[in-house]
Structure formats: structure tokens, C-alpha cells
């Protein structure tokens, strides 16, 4: 009903600035950029990186929100078997987790809870935003109750675009996070990155 009478929220939400203050919204102001110049990619040898991945066992948080979490479960079950990278056992407690994969739409009521879960993870910690919903609100961007991207709440290191069909991209992306985590040996570095 409201749809036809009220204008829908602008995609780039003018209200966001009002909420967050100026400048904070710049999605490219991540530490990653500062560290690596304009390109947020890191180049390394695949073997070296894979060895690191297997060696450092990034534990991820068992954290299901919406549709994407179903594909996330598939990633760590048979067939795709995330255990190959030493990351297949989801941790139920944020205090034991290194990576939080945010798999779904974040709505107003849930955002503060997610922030709290993130805060409870020990440093260094990494965030993967899975699916369009965590990038921008995805298909629900115009919804009155939908937070327009996880980044409004917690800093996201890696975005995996797509809706639902992201499974094929995910294990690969998981590797890339792990690559970032390579710097875990130097906590300061990692903090700076995260």
C-alpha cells in the first residue's frame, strides 16, 4: 500500500549520511587500501598461500541469518567440504572464531545483535559478507526495515556478490581471506588490515 504513495528509499539512501556522519560511508576507505595502494588485491604464490590456509585453520562462526546460510552449510558439508582448508568445523561461540561469514539480509532488529557477536570475537578477526544482501541490502534494498549492507554495522573485509548462487564463489573467496590472514603472525599488521 505504502509503495505507491510514498517514494521508495533512494538506493544511495540520503538518510544514511544523517545517521552515520559524513565520510564514514566511504566504502573504499578500508585499511586494506591504505596498506596496498589503490588495488585491494594481494598477489602471492598459490601453493604458499594454500599451505598457509591448511596450516592456520581459520575457524568460522556458526552464524546463519538467511538464505545464504543454506548455501554456506552446503559449503562445509559433503561435496564442497570446507574441511579441506582446515576450516570445516563451525564454532558455535564467537569467542572461538576467527572468521565471521555474514550470510544474509540484516534488518534493523538484528543489526545490533550482529555487532555484539562481532565484538565478542577475539582479534584478529575477519568478516566475509556473503551475498548481495550484505553488500547493499540486495533484493530487499528498498525495504523499510532492511539495513543497506553489513558494512553499515561492522567492517567487511571481503564481499562475495550474487544471491544464493554464491556457493561456487565461496570456497575460492574463503581462500582469499585466509591469504589476508597470512599476516596473523604479526598481530599489529593483522589488526591494521582487519
Amino acid at each position, binding site marked *: *500500500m*505504502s*509503495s*505507491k*504513495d*510514498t*517514494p*521508495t*528509499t*533512494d538506493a544511495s539512501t*540520503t*538518510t544514511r549520511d*544523517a*545517521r552515520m556522519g559524513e565520510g564514514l560511508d566511504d566504502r573504499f576507505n578500508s585499511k586494506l587500501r591504505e596498506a596496498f595502494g589503490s588495488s585491494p588485491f594481494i598477489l602471492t604464490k598459490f601453493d604458499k598461500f594454500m599451505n598457509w590456509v591448511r596450516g592456520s585453520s581459520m575457524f568460522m562462526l*556458526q*552464524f*546463519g*541469518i*538467511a*538464505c545464504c*546460510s*543454506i*548455501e554456506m*552449510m*552446503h559449503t*562445509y*558439508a*559433503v*561435496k564442497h567440504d570446507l574441511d579441506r582448508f582446515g576450516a*570445516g*568445523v*563451525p564454532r*558455535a561461540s*564467537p569467542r572461538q572464531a576467527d572468521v565471521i561469514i555474514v550470510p*544474509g*539480509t540484516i*534488518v*534493523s*532488529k*538484528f*543489526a*545490533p*545483535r*550482529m*555487532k*555484539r*557477536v562481532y565484538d565478542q570475537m577475539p582479534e584478529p578477526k575477519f568478516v566475509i559478507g556473503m551475498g548481495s544482501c550484505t553488500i547493499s541490502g540486495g*533484493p*530487499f534494498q*528498498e*525495504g*523499510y*526495515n*532492511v539495513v543497506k549492507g553489513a558494512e553499515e554495522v561492522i567492517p567487511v573485509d571481503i564481499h562475495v556478490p550474487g*544471491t*544464493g*548462487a554464491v*556457493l561456487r564463489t565461496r570456497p575460492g573467496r574463503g581462500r582469499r581471506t585466509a591469504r589476508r590472514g597470512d599476516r596473523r603472525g604479526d598481530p599489529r599488521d593483522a589488526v591494521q588490515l582487519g
Partner: protein
Amino acid sequence: MSADPDRTAGADAGATETLPVTEGVEADRLAELLGDLVRRRDEHLNADAAFEVHPDDVQETLFTLRDEAGFDHCSCVTAQEYDDRFESIYHLKKYDDPTQEVSVVVPTDKADPRSESAEPVYRTADWHEREAYDLVGIEYDDHPDLRRILLPETWQGHPLSKDYDQDRPQVVTLQEHANPLEEDHKDSESDTMFLNIGPHHPATHGVLHLKTTLDGEQVADVDPDIGYLHRCEEQMCQQGTYRHQIMPYPDRWDYISAGLLNEWAYARAAEDLADIEVPDYAQVIRTMSAELCRIASHMLAVGTFALDVYGDFTAIFMYAIREREKAQKVLEDLTGQRMMFNYFRLGGVVWDIPEPRDEFFERARDFLDGLPQATQEFHDLLTTNEIFQLRCVDTGILPPETAKSYGATGPVARGSGIDVDLRRDDPYGYYDELDWDVITQDGCDNYARVLVRLREVEESAKIIEQCLDLLEDWPEDDREIQANVPRTLKPDPDTETYRAVEAAKGELGIYIRSDGTDTPARFKIRSPCFSNLQTLSEMAEGEYIADLVAALGSLDIVLGEVDR
């Protein structure tokens, strides 16, 4: 089909017999029964009888309809705002015969939208009315606990009402849930303890929050707090055009790969609204693919349930996922997607079985051939397992009468011996041409619900098998996959319909009101999980906390559908 002991017992069923079904005349008889309560009579596409009643007569009307005409199922409450009034619609049905429908329309004043609550008649109205209050802003007198249900307490305004300004920022702070470890949450006199379960908790199947009060190890009270995934599905659908823009959203209601079942709900309602006839060939494809979705969905239900009651991410969960992967592979071949299929179109499906057809059929049959062994494995590992039985038999009891008053449907209702399945009772698609059974179990407990799901998987396999045979032999020049539907659909103004299909979790219904444009004026989703979840407190109170988790798992809720 299994016999239903409740069909012959109970006051409601007895009343039904005194009022035989006679199409058309039925509406008149009901009008006669209600007498002066009816202020105006109207017709909805789904129900010959839509009675408009005074806001103060709601309970009387509903009591009469329930006790004297046998309408024991309040499937949905739709609230909406017109230019000159607010309106609540109670969609009533009978468990014995869901094709008998009646809508009770309650218009209320624009300035002070207030009407009588239906909660004393149907327990399920409790949450439905809270939702109506939350999103549209109608107040219900006599309601036991009228507060927001989906949006945070601090929310300003009612988003589906006409004067809501979406661009106004809302402030939602982190309100601490009561901390169970703090001393003051322990009541020293009665010795109860308050426990938060969720919204981030492995056993809640998503972002559900249960406010639980424990007395020792027993649950004294449990209050589900939902809305952590309320992503405005109804608003999204109201903004989309009928023809193409709405169809992607149903995939995201019940996202346990049950997308096609949801799409069918929308397709059915919209086809009804625009009077579209779906070709038989397309119906067979729909039936087949929807049942594949049901298998995938039930597999996850069983897998995660096993996870809840005695597992970790071990064998059973992995086996369940393995079967799902196979089903998803077939679905992917057909639709191009693993989860968000977007495969149905109004009037049919988007494309035919992929070439080479033989290969597709072979793969689908391979999947079906492996299924008996897989279900046997589940029976060996789960249902005949002593530990599992200890956890599930006689826990989470849901008596049929309670289930009915909460509007439970799907495997939850069938596990309580209620013989209801819209595929058979209100046939759509190709189901009535095929040979299959509705599964019911009389146990009323967690165990019965698991059995129902496992046996339904076998029935679904039967259906798919027959569909594959049909598709294989279908004459090549008669493979019509879509009816001829205009590019822009504009159903007649002020047409209203409520149509439901049997989704994986139960009755998934859609109410649409058109206003002559190409987008719906009101789009309301009746989600089976929303109603099913309400039964949780009935099942868990007085039981051990561990059984609460089992009961929740056996309900097989999916939060995307509960919150919408």
C-alpha cells in the same frame, strides 16, 4: 490414505455434519446462520461468502462460524488500509474440507481503527493480530498482549499504512536482553531462572529468539521473539509488477530450497486473479520440480533435527546434505539455479526440460533410484535408534485440537493425526491425476513429525516418478510450457483472492487485492511457519529444556518465512 481419528471425533467435526456441503447454497445458509451480524455481503474469488461485520461483533460471528458451521481453521488474518477505512479480513476454512472458505471482513474507522480480537475464538489470531497491529496499525480490543511482533519496540509508525514515511530515520538501539547470569533474573521465591536462547544460537535454526523461563530444568514459560529477519517481503511484492517482478521473491520466503513450492503459491493466487489457465504439460513440470524441492526441504529438516537432538556435524547431517545435493543438481539442470530458481511464470514455467532430455530424465531417475536406500539409511540411523527414540517419543506433544486452534498445517498437523493436505483436498497442478498418499501419524510427538517427513519423501519420489513417465511420453507437438499471458497484467480493480498451496512446511497462502494497476494493492503472505511456531509454547511448557530444543527442531521453521 491414512484414517484420521479426529475426523469423527470432536465438536467441530460433529457440527460439520449437520451442515452438508452444497456449493453456492452454502453461502446463503451461512448468511442465514449469521443473521443480523452480517452488514453487507461481498464475494472474494476464493470464497463465495465474504461477510462484512461490525467491529464489535467479531467474536460472536467467529464463534458462530466455528461452532455451528464447522470453520475450525483460521488460516490467515489480513489487515489493510483503504482511503476511507481500515480493514481486517479473517480467512476461515475447514480442516476437513479446505475448499470451503469464508472471509469475515471487519472494516474499522479511519481515525480510530479498533476492532474486537479474534483470539478467544482462534488462538492463532494472537500473532496474526499482533502483526496486523505492527505493520498496519489496527488495534484489537480484548487482545491478550497487543505489542509489536516483527519490528523493534522503538519503531515509529506502521510501515504498511498510508501515511508512513519510509525515509525518516528510525533509531534502533541495542537493548540488552535480560542477562541470565545476573542475580536479579533469578526469582528467589519461586526459584525460576530466565534464559535467553538466540537470536544467535545453533539450535534456533536461524535468527529466532526464545525468552525462556526455567523452573529447575523444566520450562515454565517460553515466548518466541521473532522479527530478526523481517525483510519487508510484502512491501517488495506490493512494489513489483505481477508479470515478472514478484516471482523472484517467493524463492526467498522459505529458502530451504523450497523455492518452487513458494513460487507456486504466488503463481496460483495470481493466476486465479487474472484468470489464467496453465497448460497440462507445464503443470506436470511444476508438479515434478515442486516435489523435488519438497524432498530437499524435508532432507534438511531431518538433518538439522538430528543435529539438534543428538548430533554434531556428523553422519546424519552429511547424509542429508548429500541427498539434497543430488536433488539440487537435478533442479539446477532444470532451472539453472540451486536455490533461487525463479522458474515459474504466470501461466506456466519459463522453459522446457533441458536438452538432451534423456540425460535429464536419467539423472532424475538415478536420484530417485538411490532414494530408497538413503531413506533406509535414515531409518537405520535415526528412527530405529534407541537414543533418538528416547529423545523424541512422547516429547513435544501437540494434541490435534490444540494444533487446529493454532492453525498448524503441513507435517506438524499431519504428525498430530490431522488428515490435511492441500495437494489432495484442494487440488492444483497435476496432483489429482497421480497416485500417492497423504501421510499422517497419530503420535502427536516429535517422533511422529520426523516419521511424517521421512515418509513424505517417499511419496514425493512416487509423484516425481510418475511425472517423469508422463513427461517422457508427452507428444512432442503438445509441449506447451506457457499459456499466452499478456505482457502487462492488470487484473480488474478491487478483486480479492486468497489462495494457498501445500508448501514444504504447510499451507502457504497468498492474499492479493488488485486496484487496476499492474502491481498489487495489498499482498499478504500467510506463512505456515508463522502459525506452526506459535504451538511451541504449548509443546514445550512443563517439559525439560532439552525437549524444548527438540520440539523447536521438529517444527522445522525457517525464519525467512516466519518473519517475511
